């Protein structure tokens, strides 16, 4: 537990709770506090781990921060930090997603569309080659997770469907 010079353990716990609540309320990720020879660093990450690193005055410089909760490496503009719930159709290759056969044509599928395994649901363009992507499942499209022209990577969820 804390080796802080101000001593009292319950005081530390109260302060800690307050700090955590404040961080959660305001969406703060990292807080560094220094008061004389007492230093606290709290970091909120995906696992909600709190680290307390009380240090002596003559302590070594604070340890290197681990990489801050960064957006997962993704194929471009995708802004969804959490994986969609329910079964998804994922990209079998890398490239640019196109929802319709050509800019003038309607989309291959819209939400509510019923698909069977060999229904073409989109194109993924790679090296100037337009690859038609088949659903490979049966079901109803519930949500389209990427936009026309988005860069997509292997395994990236493209459509959420209901079997």
């Amino acid at each position, binding site marked *: 537990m804390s080796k802080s010079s101000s001593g009292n353990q319950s005081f530390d716990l109260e302060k800690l709770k307050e700090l955590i609540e404040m961080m959660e309320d305001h969406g703060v990720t990292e807080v560094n506090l220094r008061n004389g020879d007492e230093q606290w660093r709290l970091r909120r990450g995906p696992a909600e781990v709190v680290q307390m690193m009380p240090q002596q005055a003559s302590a070594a410089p604070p340890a290197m921060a681990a*990489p801050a909760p960064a957006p997962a*490496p993704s*194929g471009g503009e995708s802004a969804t930090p959490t994986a969609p719930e329910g079964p998804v159709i994922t990209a079998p290759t*890398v*490239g640019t997603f196109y929802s319709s056969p050509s800019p003038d044509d309607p989309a291959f599928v819209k939400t509510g569309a019923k698909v069977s395994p060999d229904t073409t649901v989109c194109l993924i363009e*790679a*090296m100037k080659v337009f690859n038609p992507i088949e659903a490979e499942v049966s079901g109803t499209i519930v949500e389209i997770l990427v936009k026309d022209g988005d860069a997509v*990577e*292997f*395994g990236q969820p493209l459509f959420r469907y209901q079997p």
Partner: protein
Amino acid sequence: MFERILIANRGEIALRIIRACRELGIETVAVYSEADRDAIYVQQADEAYCIGKAPSNESYLMINRIISAAEIGNVQAIHPGYGFLAENAHFAEVCRDCNIEFIGPPHQAMAQLGDKISAREIARNAKVNCVPGTKGLIESEAEAIKIANEIGYPVLIKATAGGGGKGMRVARNDISLKSGLKAAANEAEKAFNNAGVYLEKFIEKPRHVEVQILADNHGKVLHLWERDCSTQRKHQKLIEESPAPNLPQTVREDICKAAVRLIKEAGYTNAGTVEFIVDQENNYYFIEVNARIQVEHPVSEMVTGIDLIQSQIRVAAGEKLSMSQKSIKAQGSAIEVRINAEDPDNNFRGCPGKITKLRVPGGLGVRWDSHVHEGYTISPYYDSMIGKLIIHRNTREESIATLKRALREFTIEGVKTTIPLLREILRHSAFQDGKMDTTLVERTFTDSES
């Protein structure tokens, strides 16, 4: 200069390239398989794209996916690292056809030097000594027997498309030549899809000495001196060092100049390595060219002070190499050991697993090139290398002492490693006296196996 580069590789070399790019102010795009999703260098790249499932042929070897990632990542160049597609001339050609520079040699030079037969012909044209052997592939058993008797037994049967020791057999007489030819051809067919084999004189107790070269696109070809890689086990290098111990200065200079001649003759540019065999009388013979940056490149970086990866990038961007050959001096002694996750008690079987504890050494002259960290899981899909420990001190004695000290400090738990074997080799008088040859490790330290 490029604004953005894609690294078509993984592991420690991917990290190495990202470091060089950062130092040059170049943005990076990493590609990764599902097995490498949590690798640290993936997070350090400016962008990263998953390109497939774990097996290499479903990810790192998929040219179309890598090029796609390069296109959506908006890069101007691709660095292939080593292994995977680094010596795939078709990949180099495809990159450039797509207006993406391939950080490496022209694909024609790569293809010509990649074929051992045509490489030997280029060597002969450049007046570089080759190991006596057949001029081309062996067409018939009778031809092989005739030539073997001309060269003089023992002879070595080698696969033209080979590497890593596959498709190689020694024959000491006509009988073993006949059976060796069949076996080597089969192995080559399986491993490289090319059953072509040729013959060379077999040099007993050879030393492996290779020359690091660097050439720009403006006609300048430089060498960064030599590396001795004789400490091998089953054609896998364990320890590499520069300068080569106990090699007379005249021989060193001759070998390096020969390498430069050969590279010029081949029209080869960017970084590469010319490999030679040196016999016990210090005669040297050309073996092959490795048309890529190599695992052991840090050894040459330490003695010359030249950043090879940065140089590769600069050359590919069209810059002229500014240094003169005279200015490239080999200072001190550098030794690298490869630390692999292999079980020395189990025939060096790969030992994938989670690294539960890791503490790496430091101090003067200690360099650690690795992508692993405590908590990292070495997966079974790729090579078993944990990292490279490179020591650079003023003299070979000091380097050996520092290396021994550094290996003592090295703490790793969760996987078995080759560190115990390395420490044994370092204690052996042959290593200390600089009298290693490529057969010594197998003769001395491991049981002979089938």
